[in-house]
């Protein structure tokens, strides 16, 4: 198909001409490397700088570390007690909102246990999280008993660990064996139920900061809505409203505050629509925008303890915003504006970097032992990272970019298509010269031609190629490709299509804007084995 020239958000041209965009990207890359180094040093243990003077926790056991352990234990016990109380209140099922809150709390505790080198406790937190993620409607009526037993075991472990770091984890391992069938519950809230926003959990300080800034954004959005109502054609007022709402969406997503993020996003789309089809954006739309801004302020206030709107009120407003916003946007779309070339690759890269930084920030700030650390140098560096992440996130949130799992991938071409294999699964590459086929893959490996396997159109210009030696689960295979395009840090996204088990499992937008299909090494090895077997059978 041809190049997309359809409707786009009206502020995209501003993105392209935004001064310093390349500088922002470079800064993000630098910060990402910075955050990664610290994460690896801190979470993996090793020579974690600043933690108990630089040694490993087991080796030092100094006063500083002991104090950190005690603080962590107190914090962990409080969180676990809250988790237990939540589970006690719903004995026949955790409920979706409670499950989400519990998962976040236990994820944070898991990081803390990792820092303290308590693998059994860390594994239990991860298992708990998996148990709450799996299941679904079939498990809706399952009891929360196994989950409460796990919480009790963790509390007991924490209490003992605070007195004696490195406590026996036999009890936890026992619980792990029985948690596989723990229930997961998904409960639909009634329209009259108050909206449930994720509790502060381990992010109390961050959430308080969010409330402060979000309240200002919400009030700013109210003012911007009022300005738009007076002058719907005022581009400056529209841009102010859009910027404030985009920032609010980014902040709310960072804290998993879905109702706020969705409402701000819907309001933003209404503002966008007003720009693409300005004659259609009328006073009633300004009223809707004002309603949205007012509810956003109420939602944010609710985080600070104020009364929350009900699910029904939120849904009604959301429905009105979505219907109207979409109607306006579609009316503008049918008469397409001038073609806009969106730099998808840059947006994806910015999104990937920012989301990685956000993840790093969350992990760093949710480790109680680190937050209790007195080492000035470490705290100073954490502060630097936090500020940098905050700036980076705001910059990317303004671009409206989201990110998914990151992958260090090897990008290859087979025919006209691009594919990606995880760099960790590639053992090595062997160059191929079709005119002098001496560079053969190892004779003992099954061989798979990627182009033939996926039926990619032949590349008439191909004069060479390469073999990738992929490895997974103790098996290896040689994968023939037309060209190795290089190694890239990529953001992997789901394809959203029904595909067979040997098909690509995800996609990533490459640096040149094309989509690379992400391949599983184990599937490639299985396919290579199958082809060898088929060939042998045919010969026989």
């Amino acid at each position: 198909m041809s190049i997309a020239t359809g409707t786009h958000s009206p502020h995209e041209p501003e993105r392209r001409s935004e001064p310093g965009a390349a500088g922002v990207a470079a800064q993000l890359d630098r910060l990402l490397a910075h955050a990664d180094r610290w994460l690896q040093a801190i979470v993996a243990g090793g020579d974690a700088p600043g933690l108990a003077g630089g040694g490993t926790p087991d080796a030092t056991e100094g006063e500083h570390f002991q104090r950190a352990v005690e603080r962590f234990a107190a914090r962990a016990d409080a969180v676990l007690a809250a988790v237990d109380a939540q589970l006690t209140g719903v004995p026949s099922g955790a409920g979706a909102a409670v499950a989400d809150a519990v998962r976040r709390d236990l994820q944070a505790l898991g990081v803390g246990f990792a820092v303290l080198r308590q693998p059994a406790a860390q594994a239990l937190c991860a298992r708990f999280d998996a148990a709450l993620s799996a299941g679904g409607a079939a498990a809706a009526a399952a009891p929360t008993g196994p989950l409460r037993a796990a919480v009790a075991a963790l509390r007991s472990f924490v209490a003992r660990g605070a007195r004696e770091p490195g406590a026996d984890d036999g009890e936890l391992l026992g619980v792990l064996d029985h948690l596989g069938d723990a229930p997961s519950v998904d409960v639909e809230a009634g329209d009259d139920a108050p909206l449930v926003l994720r509790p502060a959990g381990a992010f109390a300080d961050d959430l308080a900061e969010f409330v402060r800034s979000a309240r200002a954004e919400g009030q700013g959005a109210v003012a911007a809505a009022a300005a738009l109502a007076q002058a719907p054609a005022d581009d400056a007022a529209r841009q102010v409203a859009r910027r404030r709402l985009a920032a609010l969406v980014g902040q709310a997503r960072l804290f998993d505050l879905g109702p706020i993020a969705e409402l701000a996003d819907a309001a933003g789309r209404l503002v966008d629509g007003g720009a693409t089809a300005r004659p259609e954006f009328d006073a009633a739309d300004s009223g809707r925008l004002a309603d949205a801004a007012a509810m956003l302020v109420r939602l944010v206030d609710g985080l600070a303890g104020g009364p929350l709107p009900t699910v029904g009120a939120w849904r009604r407003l959301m429905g009105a915003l979505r219907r109207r916003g979409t109607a306006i946007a579609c009316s503008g779309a049918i008469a397409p504006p001038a073609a806009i070339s969106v730099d998808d690759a840059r947006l994806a890269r910015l999104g990937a970097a920012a989301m990685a930084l956000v993840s790093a920030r969350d992990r760093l700030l949710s480790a109680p032992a680190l937050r209790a650390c007195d080492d000035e140098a470490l705290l100073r560096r954490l502060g630097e990272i936090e500020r940098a992440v905050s700036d980076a996130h705001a910059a990317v949130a303004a671009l409206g970019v989201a990110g998914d799992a990151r992958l260090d991938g090897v990008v290859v071409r087979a025919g006209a298509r691009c594919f990606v294999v995880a760099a960790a699964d590639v053992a090595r590459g062997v160059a191929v010269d079709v005119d002098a086929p001496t560079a053969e893959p190892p004779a003992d490996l099954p061989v798979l031609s990627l182009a033939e396997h996926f039926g990619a159109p032949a590349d008439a210009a191909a004069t060479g190629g390469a073999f990738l030696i992929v490895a997974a689960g103790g098996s290896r295979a040689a994968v023939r490709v037309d060209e190795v395009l290089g190694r890239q840090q990529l953001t992997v996204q789901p394809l959203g299509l029904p595909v067979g088990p040997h098909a690509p499992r995800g996609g990533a937008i490459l640096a040149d804007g094309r989509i690379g299909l992400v391949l599983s090494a184990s599937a490639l090895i299985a396919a290579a084995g199958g082809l060898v077997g088929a060939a042998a059978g045919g010969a026989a």
Partner: protein
Amino acid sequence: MNPAVSIAGVGDADACLCFEVAGRRFAVDVAAVREVLAAIDVTPVPHAPEFALGVGAVRGRIVPVVDPGLLLGLGPAAPAGAGAVVLVNGVPVAGRSEHVVVACVVGAIAGLRPRAAVAADGVRWLEVDALLAALATPVGPGADTPPAPTATEPGALVRQPS
């Protein structure tokens, strides 16, 4: 390609987007429509069903691209290089506030119309939920087969608007 239309007179609650698929007229609730594009670059995905044309990129997000005409057994929705692309909202992804977005290749866009007028004209209604269910249906090992018949039955995907 697409003539400009006005939405004057269309209420917020009863608007629907009308378009052609393989020469037949369909409508979809405008609340399910996220955006309309003139076209989209498609990257084919091996071993996907025939109706799944591949994936495309929309502002940094990868979205599945489907042909509802092929899914309904009506033939291609639009001649090659013609038509438009309607982005419809899907179900939320677990653990995230974002919605799945699916790109549907359609023929000519007929514009926004009130639901009552569409019903009177006998335009068929495209059930977005059923369309998305077809995308969520697993397919056999390595086969380019369509999803389970229950999801692709025309009766499950279309109805007369009420």
